[in-house]
């Protein structure tokens, strides 16, 4: 599993629609004006294809930051 830093870098490329520096590991992403339900699907697809780890919508409802998400993936390795 990638470090939090590399995980964040890779995921930001996929998410694409956030202004630079607006989305960091401890940013509460749902509070960002650009956040959309499409991003949930992008995260699910990313975790699946990049790490082979299944993350559900319910999992994501329990995460508020990219750090939370990274921690979740660490438990699923």
């Amino acid at each position, binding site marked *: 599993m990638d470090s939090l830093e590399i995980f964040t870098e890779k995921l930001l490329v996929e998410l694409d629609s956030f202004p630079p520096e607006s989305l960091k590991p401890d940013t509460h992403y749902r509070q960002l004006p650009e956040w959309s339900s499409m991003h949930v699907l992008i995260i*699910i*697809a990313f975790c699946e*294809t990049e790490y082979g780890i299944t993350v559900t*919508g319910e999992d994501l409802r329990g995460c508020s930051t990219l750090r939370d998400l990274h921690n979740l993936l660490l438990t699923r390795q």
Partner: protein
Amino acid sequence: MEYELLSPSEQQLFVKTTGIRYRHVARPGLTTGDLCYAAATELLKKLNWRGEDVDLVIMVSQSPDYFLPATAIILQDRLGMKKSSVALDINLGCSGYVYGLSVISAMMQTGAFKKALLLAGDVSTAATNKKDKSTYPLFGDAGTATALEYNRDYEIAFDLNSDGSGQRAIYIPHGGIRHPIDSTTFKEQTLEGGIIRHHRNLWLDGSEVFNFSVREAPTSIQTLMNFTGTTPDEVDYLILHQANKLMDETIRKKLKFPAEKVPYTLHDFGNTSSASIPLTIVHACRERQALTTKWLLSGFGVGLSWGSALLTTHNVVLPEIQYI
């Protein structure tokens, strides 16, 4: 993509994620039966078949012309088929084309039916609420017709599955016997994310359907390939149900199929339910008409229901798409 409930940046993200830029919406009063009838008459003309030559018609749809009678029987009459022919509906959506092929070929393999029509389509837009930005821009309307002729030596392989525990992932809550239409049916509710629906609209749990599809579709396809001893190299086209490009690309990557073998019609037609597989074949694979082609088809969604089929065509006839 013009949809005022999505801001320009949301529209851009929508197009990028779903792959959908355009959809075709049936005008009021135009039914799935009408769409499939138009497709069938064009196909019969190309094949030089008459309606009375066809002894079996199966209609796959979840937006029938009427609650009853079955739309297939109405089309038996419209197509000029004999009264001794068999006509029936199958109530399936995304998996419907694969299931339809399975049922029709199982019925034909006895030799009891020599020429058959599989009609598949939906007017899905009739069930979506314009104020529901999670569903309204996804669906387009389409009807298709596939003609099959009996050949004792011909084989199609299938892998078919069902999981009713996922019934609420995609459903229309009211209007059936479980919950008839009543005074609460058309009261709109506002859900998380500003989504507005009433109980006669399509209710879709996007992340549950996404998880289901990227989990089950690759497994079904791989199961079928293992069963038949087929490798991706031997398949000319993998035609996936056209639900969402990100979803389909995730499936493609899990199976390690090259992009050039997995065509899309999402951009021009959106999600056309059971029509999406045959529509993609006709729209995106026309160069295969005169060639022997090995097709791997996979449909997955509402039910939950999913299935895959492996078949080979020789000199398949693909009429042009009609817009009515």
